[in-house]
C-alpha cells in the first residue's frame, strides 16, 4: 500500500496531507487523554503500535505470486477507537519512509490516509456492527481486522486511480488495474492479519472471558 516517494502529483500529495492532518491531531489528543485517564492502558497502547510495527515489516507471499504486507492497525482501532491509529500508523510509515525508502515524505499524507485512517475506521465500524449483530468476540475481531486491512489496499488503489486515471477507461478502469495488483494479493494476507489479531488480543488480555477482553485491554476493566 506504500505509494512511493514522488509518485503522486504534488497537488495530490498536498491534498492527502491536508486531509490526514486533522485525524493525526485528533489522535494525538486522544492518546494524551488515554495516558492521563487510564494509565493501565498505556501498555496496550504501546502494544497496539508495536503490533502495527511488526506486521507492516513482514512482506508475505500471496497466491498472486507477489508479496505484500499486512497493516496491523485493526487491533488498536478495536481497543481504543480508530483515532489513535492515525498517530501510531504515521510513526510506522515515517520509520519506513526515512530508513527504508519505503513510501515517502511526499506520499506520507496519502499513505497515512489509507493505512492509518481508512483501515482503522473500517475495522472499528465492522467491530461495532459485529457487536450489534451479536457476533462472538473472535469472529468480530477477525472480520474487523481483516476487512480493515483489505480496505487500506482498496483505498490505495483508489488513490492511485484518482491520480492516474486510465486514458481510455478512466478512473474506474485504473481503479480495477491497481485493485488487481493490490486488493487480490491482499485477500489471503488480510485473512492472516485477522487471525493474528485474534491470537494477539487473546494473549494480551490473558485468561479471561471473551466478553471482557476489549474492556480489560482498554483499561476499563473492573
Amino acid at each position: 500500500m506504500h505509494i512511493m516517494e514522488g509518485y503522486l502529483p504534488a497537488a495530490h500529495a498536498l491534498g492527502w496531507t491536508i486531509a490526514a492532518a486533522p485525524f493525526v491531531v485528533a489522535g494525538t489528543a486522544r492518546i494524551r487523554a488515554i495516558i492521563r485517564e487510564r494509565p493501565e492502558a498505556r501498555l496496550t497502547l504501546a502494544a497496539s503500535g508495536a503490533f502495527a510495527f511488526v506486521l507492516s515489516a513482514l512482506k508475505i507471499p500471496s497466491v498472486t505470486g507477489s508479496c505484500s504486507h499486512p497493516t496491523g492497525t485493526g487491533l488498536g482501532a478495536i481497543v481504543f477507537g480508530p483515532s489513535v491509529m492515525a498517530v501510531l500508523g504515521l510513526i510506522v510509515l515515517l520509520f519506513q519512509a526515512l530508513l527504508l525508502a519505503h513510501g515517502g515524505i511526499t506520499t506520507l499524507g496519502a499513505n497515512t490516509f489509507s493505512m492509518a485512517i481508512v483501515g482503522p475506521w473500517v475495522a472499528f465500524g465492522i467491530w461495532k456492527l459485529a457487536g450489534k449483530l451479536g457476533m462472538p468476540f473472535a469472529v468480530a475481531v477477525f472480520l474487523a481486522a481483516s476487512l480493515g486491512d483489505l480496505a487500506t489496499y482498496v483505498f490505495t488503489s483508489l488513490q492511485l486511480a484518482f491520480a492516474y486515471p486510465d486514458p481510455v477507461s478512466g478512473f474506474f478502469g485504473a481503479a480495477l488495474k491497481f485493485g488487481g495488483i493490490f486488493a487480490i494479493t491482499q485477500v489471503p494476507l488480510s485473512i492472516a492479519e485477522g487471525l493474528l489479531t485474534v491470537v494477539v488480543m487473546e494473549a494480551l488480555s490473558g485468561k479471561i472471558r471473551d466478553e471482557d477482553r476489549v474492556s480489560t485491554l482498554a483499561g476499563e476493566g473492573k
Partner: protein
Amino acid sequence: MSKRSYWMLLAVALLVIVPLLKGGEFGGADGAAAALVEQTEGFATWFDPIWTPPSGEIESMFFSLQAALGALVVGYAIGRAHERSRSKDLKDGDTPPRA
C-alpha cells in the same frame, strides 16, 4: 494460549506456505503498482527519497529491526498480562504458587 489460538496460528502458517509452494516471482505489490504508474505518459517522479538503504542487506536489517522492536514490545505486554492474571488467581483463590 488457547486451543483456538494454535489452530489460528496453523492457518496463518498455511496461508504463507501454500503460495510459496505454488510458486511465483514474489516481487512487491508496491513495486508492481509503481511500474503501472510509470507507464503513464509524461510521468516523472518529482521527489527522491532523502535516504535509500545502500543495499538489500541494509534494507533487510532495517526491516528486521522494525519487526524485532515491535515483537519486543508485544512480547513484553503479553508477559505482563500473564503475570497479572497469575497474581489475580492467587488473591482470588488463595492457591499456592505453582512451582
